[in-house]
Every structure is written in C-alpha cells, then in structure tokens.
C-alpha cells in the first residue's frame, strides 16, 4: 500500500445556496442577540437560575390584553453547558439553516426534554448506559417534540420506536444493565411510557454509535447516527465520511432515484443540506458525540 500522499485542497467555496443558509443563520443569530439584549435591559433579573426556570417578573399593574403566563418548574438541567459551545463532536456538523426548525438554539434539545415530567429520569438513564443525554434529547425532539404520542403502524411514544425495535432494544438495555429491570413498564405498554421508552432509545443510540465505530468512525456524532438510522449501515457510514458538497444521490450509492425521492431527498440535495435540515431542529446537539467518553 502506498504511503498516504496529499494534494493541498483549499476549502471548497460555498455554494450560493449555502451562502443563503449562512446568511439566514447570521440573521437568526443577530435576532437572537437582539432579543437577549432587550430582555436583559428590561427585566433586570437573572436570565436563568442554575437550579431551575427563569425567574418570573410579577407585575403589580396588569396590562390590558396581556395574557397571564405561568412557568411550570421543570427539572433543573444537570448538564448546564452540555448543549452549549463545548461541543465535543468531530463529525460532519453543518449547522442550522435558521429558518425551518422550531428548536434552534444552544440548549433547546436538552431543555425541551427536561421540560417534561420524565426528562430528568431519561437523562440519568442515558448517562448510565454511556449515552450523551443531549443525543437522547435530540432524538425525542426530532421524533415527537418530546410528546408522548402515537404513530403509524406500531410506531409509538416520545421516541417513535416501532414495537419490534422497542422490544429488542429494551431487552438489550436490561441485559446490559439488569438494575433497569425494576424501573421499566413491562411489555409493549412500556413503549407509551416515556421513561421506559427512553431506555430503549438510549440503547438504540448506543448500538448505532458502536456500529459506526466498528466501521472505523471515531467519535460518532448525533448527525452521524441519524444518518445511520435513516439510511442504513452502509449509507450511514457513507454520509458520515462524505464532504458536505456531495449530493446525497451520489453518496448513497445503492439507492435508486425513486427511493431517494420517496425519502424526501431531491436529486440536487447535498449532504450538507441534509445535515443542515436536521441541525435546524436540534441546534448544536447535532455535532455532539453520542457516546459519553
């Protein structure tokens, strides 16, 4: 085998569409800063307490037409900063397009899950299985907005797992950590118990990341594992190792144009655009590692 030789290649110039995405993102960031500055100037209270939700300002003079808002305290985020700038992923993050997703922002994914009654337990479970809680949170945000809902066929729950996948994963998780057995809702009823399904979903992420590691992919990210589950073991690795400017059609070598179209992939869609569409929904959790190291 020859020694690895390189030709110097400058970063590819962004496409015009990517430039638009970048521009949109910057606009979104500036808008976010603007909101933060306004809030900071007018409220004069700490934006977030380390142990809970933002402090509510209690008006002593009511303003006509303004609804009364009540913030229900959720679980304090034990991973402050986990979704923040300390991203540990090394994978193919592409960022946010800043216009299509409802969950764009540094800690939205984890915060969304922690805003549920079961989120805190799910975080602990994920960590006990060696899974980054932000990766688990990103999964429920993408699948259901972290709502415990039904789905088509046997798909159900906050993580929208099929009955067969759920059963296989919950069994594997309990085999890996027998102490979990006493905490789960047995049978398929567990699929609609978010705490129980979160265990199965954590195992699912764990196995996906480990499969990618077996394919030589160091430190799989949330985006990498998403590609693995959306496009299979071969396609997942192909996307994880592809330059963002390649089209999905060229990278997913085994897919026909018809199958790609059925999966919502247009002929000109690039890997970077697909990654951006996922990132737009989960923020920078997309580039974080799936596995706790």
């Amino acid at each position, binding site marked *: *085998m*020859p*020694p*690895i030789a*390189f*030709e110097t*290649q400058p*970063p*590819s110039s962004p496409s015009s569409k990517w430039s638009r995405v970048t521009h949109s*993102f*910057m606009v*979104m*960031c*500036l808008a*976010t*800063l603007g909101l933060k500055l306004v809030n900071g100037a007018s409220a004069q209270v700490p934006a977030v307490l380390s142990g809970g939700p933002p402090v509510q300002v209690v008006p002593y003079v009511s303003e006509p037409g303004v609804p009364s808002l009540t913030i229900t305290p959720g679980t304090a985020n034990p991973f402050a900063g986990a979704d*923040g*700038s300390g991203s540990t992923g*090394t*994978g*193919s*993050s*592409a*960022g*946010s397009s800043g216009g299509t997703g409802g969950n764009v922002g540094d800690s939205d994914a984890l915060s969304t899950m922690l805003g549920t009654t079961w989120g805190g337990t799910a975080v602990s479970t994920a960590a006990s299985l060696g899974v980054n809680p932000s990766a688990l949170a990103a999964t429920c945000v993408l699948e259901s907005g972290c709502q415990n809902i039904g789905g088509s066929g046997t798909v159900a729950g906050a993580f929208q797992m099929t009955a067969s996948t759920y059963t296989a994963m919950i069994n594997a998780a309990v085999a890996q950590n027998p102490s979990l057995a006493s905490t789960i809702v047995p049978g398929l009823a567990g699929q609609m118990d978010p705490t129980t399904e979160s265990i199965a979903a954590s195992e699912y992420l764990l196995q996906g990341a480990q*499969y990618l590691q*077996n*394919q*030589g*992919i*160091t430190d799989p990210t949330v985006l990498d594992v998403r590609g693995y589950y959306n496009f*299979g*073991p*071969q*396609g*997942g*690795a*192909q996307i*994880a*190792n592809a*330059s*963002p*400017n*390649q*089209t999905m*059609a*060229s*990278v*997913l*070598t*085994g*897919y026909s*144009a018809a*199958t*790609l179209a059925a999966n919502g992939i247009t*002929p000109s869609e690039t890997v*970077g655009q697909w990654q951006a569409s996922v*990132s737009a929904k989960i923020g*920078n959790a997309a*580039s974080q590692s799936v596995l706790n190291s």
Partner: protein
Amino acid sequence: MVTRKVNLLAGLALILSCGSAFAQVYTKQILTGYKCMMLAQQWGGQGPVPPPVPVYSGPHPNAEQVGIAGGTVIVPSTGEPNDGRMEMLFPNGRKVWIDVANIVPWHSKADPTSMCRPVLLSNGRYGTDGGR
C-alpha cells in the same frame, strides 16, 4: 462612531459564538494514490440489509477481524490483492484488509455520472468528495 464600532464588535462576537453550531466540514486534502470502490452488495433502502462485510488486520486467513466495511471503501489505486484480500483505508486512517470478492468499482445508482475521490476531511476522517 463609537456606538457603531461597539455594535459591529457585538455583532461579530455573536456570529463567532453562533459558529459553534456551524462547523462545516470541508475537504482538507486529496489523497493521491487511492481510489474509491464500494461493497458489491449494496443496500438501497428496501428489503433485507446485506450481512456486514468484515475487515481484517491483515491478508492472512487467520488475521483477526477488526471491524466492518462501510458502503464506500478506499483502496490503493494500483493495489493488488494479497491472498484474496485488498488493503483499504479505514475512516480513522487505519490500514485494514477486505476480501476482494466483496468490493466492486465505485458507481452511484441514482447519479451515474458522479465521481468519487478519496480525501482527508477537515474533521480528520478519511472519506470522499465528488471531485471529477
């Protein structure tokens, strides 16, 4: 004037802070002396997934399995099989071996005119881009 500068700096700081979620990967270097091939049994999103294709630490029959091949594999441009196995480059840079019967020349079903070029990506992975 000062206000304008402050605003400019604030905007710049914000853009930089938002950049944490915008770490676009790019082709860092082209790998010369290598070419793309792919697994002979491709999965196209339907039907049963083909069995995983093992990769080994060496060409000899008793070499240990060290992993599984992805859909696209990177091999030396002029490499010859050794004991029925071809050396290939794993995404993490490790040199491993794959049964030559399991790989075929690279081509894309949905985009037959596309090309594949082995590269080193900016995230440190050995992967591909579509250079022609």
